[in-house]
C-alpha cells in the first residue's frame, strides 16, 4: 500500500490511479474533525476530567478524586434513578421487541393496505418525544383525560397515572412503548421479508406447525435483526429524557427519574456539575457494558463451542 500516486495509464485499470493521498484525505475530512473535536470530543473530555473535581461554576474547583462517583453510587437519589432506569430499560425493551415481533409476524404477507400501514407506523418513531410526553400527560389527566374517561365508561376504578410513584414510571414506559414499538414492527417486517423461503417450505413439507416454524426457523434466522433492534433500544433508553421531562419531570419525588433526568436536575437545578457529569458518565458506561454483554456473551459461547 503506497500513498504515492501511480502513473496514469489510460485504458488500463490500476489498483488506484487516483491521487488518494492521506494528506488530501485529511484536508477534506479536516473541517468535520475540527468541529467534532472542538464541540464534541473536547467538551466530553473536559467534563470527564471535571467529574473528578468539585465543579459548581463558582470559580474554585478543588480536586476530589472519585468523590463525585462514590457520592452518587452510595446516594439514595442516584440509586432510585438507577433502579428506575433498569426497570424502564428492561420492561420497555422487552415489551417493544416482543410486541414488535408478534405484530410483524401477524401482519407479514400480502395484506391490503400494508403500504398505508407502513407509512402510519413510521409516524410515532419520528415525532418529537416531547410531544409524545405532552400528549400522554394529557391522555392520563385524571380529571379531563381520555383514558380515565374510558375507564369510568366501563365502570373501572380510575388510576392515579402521574401522581402515584409506581404508576408514574408505568406511564412513562407506556409512552415509550407507544412511540417505539412501531419502529420494531417495521424493522422486523423488513427482516421477515428478506428471509430465505426454502427452509420454511421444507419445514412445512416435514409437517411443522406455524409455532414450530416460528420458534425453530424464523427466530434463529432473525437473530441479526433482533440484535440490531436491541442495540438501538439499549442506546436509546439510556438517553431517554424528553418524554419523562414533559410527563413528570422525574416526579413524584423522583419516582420516574431516569439517569439522564437525574443528571439534568443535578446540573441545572442544584448547579452541581461535578456530580451531574459523573452520573452522565455512569449512564454512558452502563450502556457500553450492556452492549458489550449483548455482543460479547454470544461471541464467547460460540468460541467455547468451537473449541
Amino acid at each position: 500500500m503506497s500513498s504515492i500516486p501511480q502513473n496514469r495509464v489510460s485504458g488500463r485499470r490500476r489498483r488506484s490511479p487516483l491521487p488518494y493521498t492521506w494528506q488530501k484525505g485529511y484536508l477534506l475530512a479536516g473541517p468535520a474533525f475540527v468541529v467534532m473535536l472542538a464541540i464534541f470530543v473536547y467538551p466530553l473530555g473536559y467534563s470527564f476530567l471535571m467529574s473528578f473535581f468539585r465543579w459548581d461554576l463558582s470559580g474554585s474547583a478543588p480536586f476530589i478524586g472519585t468523590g463525585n462517583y462514590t457520592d452518587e453510587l452510595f446516594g439514595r437519589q442516584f440509586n432510585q434513578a438507577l433502579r428506575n432506569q433498569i426497570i424502564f430499560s428492561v420492561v420497555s425493551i422487552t415489551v417493544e421487541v416482543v410486541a414488535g415481533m408478534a405484530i410483524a409476524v401477524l401482519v407479514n404477507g400480502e395484506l391490503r393496505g400494508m403500504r398505508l400501514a407502513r407509512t402510519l407506523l413510521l409516524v410515532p418513531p419520528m415525532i418529537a418525544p416531547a410531544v409524545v410526553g405532552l400528549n400522554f400527560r394529557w391522555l392520563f389527566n385524571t380529571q379531563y383525560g381520555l383514558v380515565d374517561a374510558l375507564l369510568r365508561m366501563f365502570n373501572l376504578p380510575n388510576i392515579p397515572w402521574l401522581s402515584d410513584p409506581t404508576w408514574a414510571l408505568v406511564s412513562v414506559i407506556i409512552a415509550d412503548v407507544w412511540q417505539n414499538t412501531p419502529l420494531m414492527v417495521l424493522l422486523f417486517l423488513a427482516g421477515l421479508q428478506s428471509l430465505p423461503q426454502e427452509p420454511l417450505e421444507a419445514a412445512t413439507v416435514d409437517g411443522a406447525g406455524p409455532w414450530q416454524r416460528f420458534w425453530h426457523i424464523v427466530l434463529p434466522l432473525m437473530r441479526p435483526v433482533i440484535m440490531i433492534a436491541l442495540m438501538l433500544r439499549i442506546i436509546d433508553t439510556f438517553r431517554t429524557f424528553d418524554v419523562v421531562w414533559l410527563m413528570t419531570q422525574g416526579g413524584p419525588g423522583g419516582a420516574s427519574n431516569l439517569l439522564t433526568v437525574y443528571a439534568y436536575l443535578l446540573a441545572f437545578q442544584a448547579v452541581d456539575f461535578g456530580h451531574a457529569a459523573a452520573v452522565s458518565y455512569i449512564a454512558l458506561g452502563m450502556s457500553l457494558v450492556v452492549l458489550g454483554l449483548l455482543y460479547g456473551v454470544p461471541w464467547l459461547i460460540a468460541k467455547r463451542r468451537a473449541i
Partner: protein
Amino acid sequence: MDTVAVSTHRKPRRRRRRFTAGIAGRYLALFLTIAFTIFPLVWLFLTSIRSSADIFSVPVHIIPVTATLTQYVSVFGEYDTMDYVWNTIIVSFVTVILVHLLAIPCAYALSRFRMPGVMLIFGLLLIMRMIPVIALAIPLFAVFAAMGLLDSIWALILAHTAAKLPVAIWLLLGFIQDVPREIEEAAQSDGAGTMRTLVQIVTPLIAPGIGASAVITFLFTWNDLLLALTLTSSKAAQTLPVGLTNFVSQFGIDWGAMSAAGVLMVIPTLVFVWFAQGLLVKGLTTGAVRG
C-alpha cells in the same frame, strides 16, 4: 407466502378467494395496531380544535362539540409561538446545511483515501453516536457560558452540528462505498481534480444518501428538547419543544394551546413521512441509530 395461522373453515358470507379465518385474524391484528398507533395523535388533533369549554368538560366528549381554530389563534396571539417556530426552523435548516457541507467531504475522504488512523476514527464515530445528549449538554453549557455564547441561535446550531455529524458521516459512508471507483477514475483521467470529482461526480451519485441523512438530521434537530433546554433561556433562541415546557410552568397548563403547539411540532414529521418515506426508512436502517 403461506399464512401464519391456517384455518380450515371459510367465512360463510364473504365469498372472496382464500379469505380464511386466519387472514381475518391478521387483518384484525393490522387494524388494531394501526388504531393504537394513530389514535393518540388523533386525540391530540381533536383537542387542538376544541373550544376551551369543551376541553375542560366532564364527562369527556369523545367527538368535539364544535370545531374551532381559537386554540391556534391563542398559540400565535397570546403565547407568541411564532418566535419559537422561527428559531426552530432556522436552527434546523442551518444545521442540516452545515452538517452536510462538513460530512460529505469527510465521508468521501474516509472511504477513499488511505488515511492513517482511520480505524480509530471509525471507532470514535461509533462511540460518539452512543453518547447520551446530557453528557454533551453539561460541559457545552459551561464552555458556551465561558464564551458568552449562551442563549443564542449560534450556540444551538454549533451544538447540533457537532452532535449530528457522526450519524451523518456514518450514513453517507455507506452510500459512497456503493459508488464504483471506475466513475471517479474516468473523471480524473479526463482532468478533473479531487474537489471537482467530489462536487460534480460523487455528490450527484449519492443524492439519495444525502437526502436520507438530511431528512434524519432535520427531524432530530427539529425534535430536540435537551440541547435547547440547556443552552437557551429566552425567546431569542428557544425552540418549539422548549416552548411546550413553558406552557406548563408559566401559565398553569393550557391544554388547548399546548395541543395546538404539539400539532404544529408534528407537521414536518408528517410531511416527511408522507413525501419522503423511502428516504426516512433508508436513513433509519442504514444509520441504524437515532441522532
